């Protein structure tokens, strides 16, 4: 995305702030770019379903234990999958917020994110996803 560029320079203080802002944007872009390389896994409370997502929230894997197939009723699998999916995406969101905190030096509440929040399938900003992500 083209960054705005203002032609008339202001005071030295303004220019310093603009340079700081540009450096911050660069650090945030690097942090977001590294998210798809991360992986987060969570297990449901019965211990039989494990869901893994990448750092941007994309679903990578659902592992169902052999025990679940033998002993669970079919209607019990869905809720267990949703519980593990929610857990994995909460971890992913916390990872993203931690990356933002590290890049920006500010507290955005990474450790306070509730696992009850309904999280969408991806939380990476649209313009930072790869073509493959959005295909």
């Amino acid at each position: 995305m083209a960054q705005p560029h203002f032609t008339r320079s202001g005071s030295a203080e303004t220019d310093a702030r603009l340079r700081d802002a540009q450096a911050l944007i660069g650090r945030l872009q690097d942090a977001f770019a590294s998210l798809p390389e991360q992986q987060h896994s969570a297990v449901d409370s019965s211990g039989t379903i494990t869901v893994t997502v990448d750092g941007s929230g994309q679903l990578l894997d659902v592992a169902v234990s052999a025990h679940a197939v033998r002993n669970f009723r079919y209607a019990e699998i869905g809720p267990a999958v949703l519980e593990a999916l929610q857990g994995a995406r909460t971890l992913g969101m916390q990872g993203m917020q931690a990356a933002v905190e590290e890049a920006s030096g500010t507290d955005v509440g990474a450790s306070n994110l509730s696992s009850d929040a309904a999280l969408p399938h991806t939380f990476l900003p649209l313009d930072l996803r790869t073509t493959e992500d959005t295909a």
Partner: protein
Amino acid sequence: MNELAERIEKLLAEARRLSEDSAGMAQRIQSEVVQGVAAEGRVVAYANGFGVVHDVQLDPLAMRELDNMTLGEAIRDAIIAAERASEAVRNEVLDELRVEGRSVREIFEQGPDLSGLEAQINRLRSL
């Protein structure tokens, strides 16, 4: 300055209309239910238009006919299919919401057109 005042007034009017339209569209996206199917219909995942998966249903036969590895892959595929269907619905709705002739989806993907605004700011700074 009259030209600038007219442009700001126009932008404010657009912002008011956008605010009203977007509230209705957010409600519409939220209430949409899409599904993703895998393993020849044995696994179905349901999501709303925002991509939040709220249900995963298995056919009773899935537990008898699929081993645990295949069942996990089918559940994953169904969820991903539901999320993609959700994205298609969301994009369709965002295409309808327009600001100064551009769809909100286009603005999300390509960013705002700042060239006119930049020129106005530079004019203001030179006054």
